[in-house]
């Protein structure tokens, strides 16, 4: 189903989407999107939404299953507390992506802003994933409690850092895969850098294949640069802080 959403208020648009999903529509193409927030919020099940334009903040918040593909840039707060599903952005995106995310996947073709992956968490099979094709801003993976973050740094300019300062600050779960090197002094004191194991490659490779497929980038090109991983050195860095 195609919807021309130019000038449409976000509430009306989201109501329409929910209504149509309830009626059994599973595929949507949204034309003329500009700034409508909360698109796809709380939607469940096998639904595919193609978005043409720049959706507003909190795209896919609390989403539980659908797939959203954005042909344009994203703004702030994509995949906020998302439970399941997939968001693919053919462009860059803003700050605070995947806040409290607890499942599903977020692929951003280009760079992202500050605080991406903040407080992501995982539980058994619920392992959220964010793959960033470009670079990431400061506080990447801040307070991360679970899940997988990947930064590729493709098309990174000479001298441009892969991520901003305070990388993995307060992190106490999950893993960050970095394609390339970062300065040691930007690392949060709760994390340390390690080489990847076989197990790591088993988790990482399918994500890289997805990225290569979604954005039509040669996989060889992505694999040309060696990866490092960041994991927390303590599971409970604050255990004592708040009890004594």
């Amino acid at each position: 189903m195609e919807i021309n959403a130019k000038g449409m208020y976000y509430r009306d648009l989201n109501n329409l989407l929910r209504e149509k999903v309830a009626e059994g529509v599973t595929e949507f193409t949204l034309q003329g999107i500009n700034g409508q927030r909360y698109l796809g919020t709380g939607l469940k099940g096998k639904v595919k939404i193609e978005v043409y334009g720049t959706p507003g903040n909190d795209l896919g918040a609390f989403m539980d299953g659908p797939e959203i593909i954005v042909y344009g840039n994203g703004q702030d707060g994509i995949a906020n507390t998302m439970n399941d599903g997939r968001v693919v952005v053919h462009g860059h995106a803003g700050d605070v992506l995947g806040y409290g995310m607890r499942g599903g996947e977020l692929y951003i073709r280009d760079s992202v802003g500050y605080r991406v992956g903040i407080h992501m968490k995982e539980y058994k099979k619920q392992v959220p994933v964010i793959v960033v094709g470009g670079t990431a801003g400061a506080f990447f993976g801040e307070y991360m409690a679970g899940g997988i973050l990947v930064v590729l740094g493709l098309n990174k300019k000479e001298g441009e850092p892969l991520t901003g300062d305070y990388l993995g600050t307060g992190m106490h779960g999950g893993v960050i895969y970095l394609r390339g090197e970062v300065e040691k002094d930007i690392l949060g004191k709760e994390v340390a850098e390690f080489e990847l194991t076989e197990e790591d490659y088993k988790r990482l490779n399918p994500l890289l294949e997805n990225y290569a497929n979604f954005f039509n980038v040669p996989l060889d090109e992505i694999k040309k640069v060696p990866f490092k991983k960041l994991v927390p050195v303590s599971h409970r860095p604050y255990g004592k802080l708040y009890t004594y």
Partner: protein
Amino acid sequence: MDRTFERIPSGCAISGIMSVTGKRISGEKIIASISLMHDRSNGLGGGFAAYGIYPEFADHYAFHLMYQSERGRTLTEEFLNKHFIIERGEPIPTRPVATITDPPLLWRYFLKVPEERLYKNHEPMDERDYVVEKVMYINDNIPDSYVASSGKNMGAFKGVGYPEDIGRFFRLEEYEGYLWTAHGRFPTNTPGWWGGAHPFTLLDWSVVHNGEISSYGINKRYLEMFGYKCTLMTDTEVVAYAVDLLHRRHDLPLEIVAKVLAAPFWKDIEKMEEEDRKLYTALRQVYGSALLNGPFSIIVANSKVMMGLNDRIKLRPMVWGRRGDFYYMASEESAIYEIEPALDEVHVSKGGEPVIVRLKEGE
């Protein structure tokens, strides 16, 4: 202009457009841009700064006044008559808008400073210092009167309401300017009232701000030492006075002003090369009290420049873009696309790194 507006604790939206070659456009575009971010505001404040709108009075100080009573107007006009040459005084044109209620009396005056008055304690006085002194006097001493703006060939249009309604109320589509900024307010710590709406201005400076300035108390006391009076009950006021002090009076380049307002952390200063380390150490030592703490994204403008700046760890959003000689800044990227769908470049701003756009000389 009732000053007992209810405080609703609860984001803001900002937007800016500038033609670096001085091309003037109507207020429609900035209204469209800020209006797209309607849901970032709550109807308790909206406002615009417009540059290049009074070419026929380009050499006059354009004072925009808000009066809560006729008495305020009488007293202020008496004061203006005594200290300035009033070339023209008139009500600011407005149109009725259903959602804009209880506006103050809104007047504008085009003023010149009589040269013989530019003495203080028998010493010659800078004309702009003179104007600042008079603005501070009105805001602080004349009842029911607030100066909304006081620069040349520019003006602030602001009030209580959603920004798009304020824009229509002030008939901004009838003005043409080369630089526009706008604000939609969601007051957090201070009441929503007409004088407290953004932009905050002084001379031709204007500031629109999303965030809150936790260092307001320190900044205010520091600025008071230089004669600035903070009377508007809103934290953002200090930014306008701080840039006036640092750039106009202390002659710091705007790039450095940004590094005073959003100073690098000591740990980052320690990593700098010696020359920079000395400079930034000195700046933090001398201007520590002008550091803005807390989350903010601001657009600061004067007749020649538009600067976007975020706090050091970027706790508020900002995006900037360019199409030809027009530059755009906004809290959300879509607010730029709304008025310019085909940008030549677009970037998500970084914390503490100013984006400075200058009018090309001779334009």
